[in-house]
């Protein structure tokens, strides 16, 4: 039974690691860390958590999970949204951080890095790697990003906010 449950969880996570985030399609839902667990039972549940309370992508995310599960013959798995524990950018996978960087979005610092620095550190420019950067606005194109600019290469860029 336990082996079956592990098998199912592994299967669902593998499946959802191929489902892109609707707003930042370069990373997957598992990279983003919003797929919390697969809870065995009848029916089994996949537990997800929103990034921000009002994230407009929430409905699109549920739809794409549903589609992926249905297509894999897992139509009986239910999707449950749970708020606690609250999502944190620390749940973004290392692979996810690398993908964000390659896409031109400065990834959030890890929890350890934030502990060492008191307050907000400057973002590292994803184009040229410079730390001479400046925040333009704390709110960017989506709730999870802030708008920054690089003082060396002069490019504006998005930065994933640490929450």
């Amino acid at each position, binding site marked *: 039974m336990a082996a079956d449950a592990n098998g199912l969880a592994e299967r669902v996570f593998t499946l959802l690691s191929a489902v892109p985030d609707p707003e930042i399609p370069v990373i997957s839902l598992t990279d983003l860390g919003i797929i919390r667990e697969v809870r065995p039972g009848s029916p089994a549940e996949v537990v997800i958590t929103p990034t921000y309370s009002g*994230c407009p992508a929430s409905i699109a995310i549920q739809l794409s999970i549903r589609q992926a599960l249905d297509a894999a013959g897992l139509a009986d798995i239910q999707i449950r949204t749970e708020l606690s524990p*609250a999502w944190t950018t620390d749940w973004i996978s290392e692979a996810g951080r690398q993908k964000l960087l390659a896409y031109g979005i400065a990834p959030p610092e890890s929890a350890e890095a934030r502990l060492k620095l008191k307050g907000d550190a400057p973002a590292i420019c994803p184009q040229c790697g410079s730390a001479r950067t400046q925040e333009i606005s704390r709110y960017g194109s989506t*709730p999870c990003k802030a708008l920054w600019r690089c003082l060396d290469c002069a490019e504006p860029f998005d930065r994933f906010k640490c929450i």
Partner: protein
Amino acid sequence: MSQTFTLSPAELALRLGDDALILSHRLCEWCGHAPTLEVDLALSNIGLDLLGQAQFFLNYAGEMENAGRDADALAYHRDEHEFKNCLLTEQPNGDFARSIVRQFFFSAWQQLRFHELAKSGDATMAAIATKALKEIAYHVQFAAEWVVRLGDGTEESKCRVADGISWSWRFVDELFTGEDAALRPAWEARVRATLNEAGLDLPAPVRGITGGREGRHSEYLGHLLAEMQYVQRCHPNAQW
């Protein structure tokens, strides 16, 4: 006996949900009208956070009411007197400075209130509050920075932010009724620190205006609801 003990969890969820819903609508009225594109995005994003919080609180309030109403039903199918938001949140936007002061006063209050709520024995309320606090930290910071920028700016911007303070000040008492009265010293300290940085100070005490929590609202709420509920009033329960 303090008021919180007589306040049912459903009533509390309704109040906090209505606060977030109504202020969210006010912020969305700025969309396309803010002084710069960055501010436009910021106000809309704050509105979006609040809308998400409203949805969580109102769905929970509906669940506890157990009469088949969800967040949408509560938002779109209630009349003015059934809304329990505080009067501060329904005040018209005025100019940018007035909206910023309203946001600062409200977000600073919400931050203190939700810190308490996060310790609540009600797991759902605690989860909503814990999640929201991460967002509110940004709201407070954004609004406080603008209060300083405007207060410490030109004579004109200082005048306008002072006008915003005196407009909103009358509605502050309502935030600290019942057990919430204990939060007032911390709130005043937080607000005073920012106002002082902006070259301003807390205004003299005034007779506060209350009533929102009991469903007695200013004339502004009706106009807001007329717009917010228009489609659902014309086509009840329409979905798309």
